[in-house]
């Protein structure tokens, strides 16, 4: 959603000359770039618990962040007031990074040092900065709670109607609307309003003495129109799906074995185990296991891995990133070759490439760093059923609940919330509450098959690298030759 420029200048009670004066103050001691990030966020939430919507609230967060770059060094300060004297104090605090020096732009790494494919990735895909990727027809800020509450009530009744083992339902509608104004020492002024809605249910089931839980959610950069009876029906059906298997599930015998990732939410593995290692700050600092792999074959030919800010209404969609760079579709791996890291302005300058629109921040309280948006692998040509049929003995995973990666080593661990044993090419006994561990680069090299069924998961994914930002993930059905599965 993009209003006229004056709308944003009025919210923050600034004008271009005043922002120029702030930039000048920020650069007074030196430095070669400065920017301002104004934010006005309203959050709201409603909670259904024990059959009634008895809890809710609204929250306001307002302020401005001032950043000074001196070479690759960062000075950052913020103010919760946009009064002139408060912002000036903030600019002076950020200017401390320069300390009388100026480090003008130099490429730390020649543009083609790691292969000719390093450049030429500029704005591939859909870079159109004029696109509004999250138009809103019903606004969160002006919608009464009485309009939202029936969706929570219906979700609970639909879930309970589908399964008599349901003992508790906690339903939540949460939303956030953020007005953003960005201005920098290049005199670029960008502004927009970002919506975000999330609708979720956590369901507790009881069968005999056993208890199980399941959470389902939908989250989009959209207005209230994201709520509908159809969404309620879909979520209710998803909430009770697979509960029989979950009560019957057990831990399998552990060991090394082939693993098939189901399409959709399994994409979190791609986000954690590979995506983070492709973020350019980890590579610039030499900590990522991929820092010397640019231009090299990192997985079998035919595989494309993408980070995409252009998916309309997606949780990771961005018209602009938080440095004012247009949102883009960035191919990190093309035909199995690592062709691009994910860049903010600092790392792009270091590598001598264009920023990829990945400079993101949680709020005005944080300086931007390279972050993913919607990360996924493109579809291959295998039928999912054929992939499963090709595995004599292994594990099929359709839901992970947690994951972690060690960026330097590439080692990852993921908790399997639900899945199945694969025996003689067929899904057999359900499994749960086990871990899968492996190494990111090795797992990429060991991809044996990619399905033709890419799905982007619609759930509420939040990435927590130093700061929390909304993301999404996806993957087609993928077979990995060998991973370690924890079990009895």
């Amino acid at each position: 959603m993009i209003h006229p420029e004056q709308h944003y200048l009025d919210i923050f009670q600034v004008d271009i000359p005043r922002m120029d004066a702030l930039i000048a103050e920020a650069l007074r001691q030196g430095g070669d770039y400065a920017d301002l990030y104004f934010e006005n966020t309203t959050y709201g939430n409603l909670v259904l618990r024990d059959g009634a919507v008895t809890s809710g609230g609204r929250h306001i967060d307002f302020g401005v962040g001032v950043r000074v770059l001196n070479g690759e060094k960062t000075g950052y300060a913020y103010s919760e007031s946009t009064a002139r004297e408060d912002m000036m104090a903030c600019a002076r605090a950020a200017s401390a990074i320069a300390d009388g020096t100026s480090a003008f732009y130099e490429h730390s790494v020649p543009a083609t040092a790691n292969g000719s494919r390093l450049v030429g990735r500029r704005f591939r895909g859909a870079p159109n900065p004029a696109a509004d990727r999250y138009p809103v027809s019903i606004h969160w800020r002006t919608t009464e709670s009485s309009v939202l509450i029936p969706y929570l009530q219906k979700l609970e009744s639909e879930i309970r109607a589908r399964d008599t083992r349901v003992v508790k339902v906690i339903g939540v509608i949460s939303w956030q609307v953020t007005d953003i104004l960005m201005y920098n020492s290049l005199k670029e002024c960008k502004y927009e309003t970002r919506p975000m809605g999330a609708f979720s249910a956590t369901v507790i089931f009881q069968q005999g003495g056993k208890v199980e839980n399941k959470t389902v959610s939908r989250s989009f950069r959209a207005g209230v129109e994201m709520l509908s009876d159809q969404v309620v029906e879909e979520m209710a059906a998803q909430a009770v799906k697979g509960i029989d298997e979950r009560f019957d599930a057990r831990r399998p015998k552990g060991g090394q074995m082939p693993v098939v990732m189901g399409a959709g939410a399994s994409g979190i593995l791609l986000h954690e185990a590979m995506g983070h290692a492709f973020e350019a700050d980890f590579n610039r600092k030499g900590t990522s296991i991929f820092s010397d792999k640019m231009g090299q074959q990192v997985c079998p030919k035919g595989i494309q891995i993408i980070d995409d800010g252009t998916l309309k209404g997606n949780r990771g969609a961005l018209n602009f990133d938080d440095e004012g760079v247009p949102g883009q579709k960035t191919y990190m791996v093309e035909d199995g070759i690592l062709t691009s890291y994910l860049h903010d302005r600092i790392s792009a300058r270091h590598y001598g490439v264009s920023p990829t629109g990945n400079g993101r921040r949680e709020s005005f309280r944080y300086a931007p760093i390279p972050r993913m948006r919607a990360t996924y692998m493109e579809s291959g040509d295998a039928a999912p059923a054929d992939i499963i049929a090709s595995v004599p003995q292994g594990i099929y995973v359709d839901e992970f609940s947690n994951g972690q990666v060690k960026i330097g080593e590439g080692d990852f661990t993921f908790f399997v919330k639900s899945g199945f044993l694969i025996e003689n090419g067929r899904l057999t006994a359900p499994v749960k509450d086990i871990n899968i561990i492996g190494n990111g680069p090795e797992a990429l090299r060991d991809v044996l098959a990619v399905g033709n069924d890419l799905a982007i998961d619609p759930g509420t994914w939040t990435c927590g690298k130093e700061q929390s930002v909304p993301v999404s993930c996806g993957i087609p059905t993928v077979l990995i030759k060998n991973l370690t599965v924890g079990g009895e």
Partner: protein
Amino acid sequence: MLSEKEIALARETLEFALENGAQKARITLNKSLMELFGILNGELDKVSHALDRSLQVSLWVDGRFGSFSSNRLEEEGLRQFILGAIDTVRSLEPDEARDLPDPERLVKNAENGRELDLYDNAYETLTSDQRRALALGTSVWDRKAELEKGFRILSEEGEYSDSIFDSVVMDSNGLFARHTETSFEIGYEVTVEDGEGNRYASYWWDATPRLEAILPSLKTCCEKAVQRAAAQIGPMDHPGGKCNIVVDSECASKFLTPVLNALGGFAIQQKNSFLVDKAGQRVFSPHLTVMDRPWNKGESGSRLYDSEGVATREFPIIDQGVPTRYFINTYISHKTGLEPTIEDATRPVVLPYGGCKTRDDVLRKVGNGILITGFNGGNSNTSTGDFSYGIEGFAFEDGVITHPVREMLVTGNFIDLWNNLTDVADDARLCLSKLIPTLAFQNIDCNG
């Protein structure tokens, strides 16, 4: 740090809410200031200045409840915000269980915020130049050659920061309480590379409310991170199976936190806890006793009151394997009929058992097994208590570390795990919010 004017604004906001439709209200006003200096490979890489304020408002209107917050503290704007908040609460469904705590339970001795000795005057006199010097003095980059023994240090990234946090809470039942603390912190992450190009990363950190107390760690933190990273070089497979495990005090909270969470009243009321109906029963090993000790002066994590303003107290959370009670706030108490307590464990302390003082003592006593020094991913099931975590650590034999292990998992159920507790050392790190020493367990499933 909070000015009298800011505190007066909070009082006026409380009164305004009561005059305009709220029958009860609680206001919490927080303010914090942090200065941070980041170091990358021996050079200053980042400076950051962060001043935050937030006003949190809980409102009870016509039998309904809502919670709100804003960092825009201009008087007129706040009044409009409160009027809008009251309208929002009126749109919710009534909930008789919502109420303020009984005034008898409220804290009475948190008047100036400094009763627990968590505030260091040295914070006020530190200059920006002094902070910068402290931060730059923590790097080992200019002497890395002498530390590189069979490996290369690829990068060091550290942060020195100090902060002050000041908070007051007041309600329409007459509560007024204040908590003030300073914090001085250092943290480093280091990546090293062995002769074959394999990379290993690790970290170390420390935090304390007193400047003087952090000074020794400023000198040793980065080197300790280097040592921890280098110690991982040359990992080997381990056959796994049923193993003795020793869990380093740095990461032992991974096993206790889910147990404390399972004692939370909300999880119990929602039946999403593996400890439903277990209070008062012997569930864990009799070797396990966890005390809540919230009043230790000068130690991070100490608090005189919880977010409702209810006074904390010292009591056994788990007494010789028996969870003594659930954590029941006012709302959950009214929902369940259970006696209210503080809302959560404040500063849990696991008491030593078995006679060992240090991690090395425990390794010698246990003999053979796996020493866990960190966790990498994994999760637990809050309903069943089943868990599976990726682990980092070392194999040890005859009480001596032999080699790092790789790609290992520890899997089990928390009730079984804590029934297999054999030893608790006496080496908890004071910088952590939960004081958990090195732990030893027997007969635990480990997969490699």
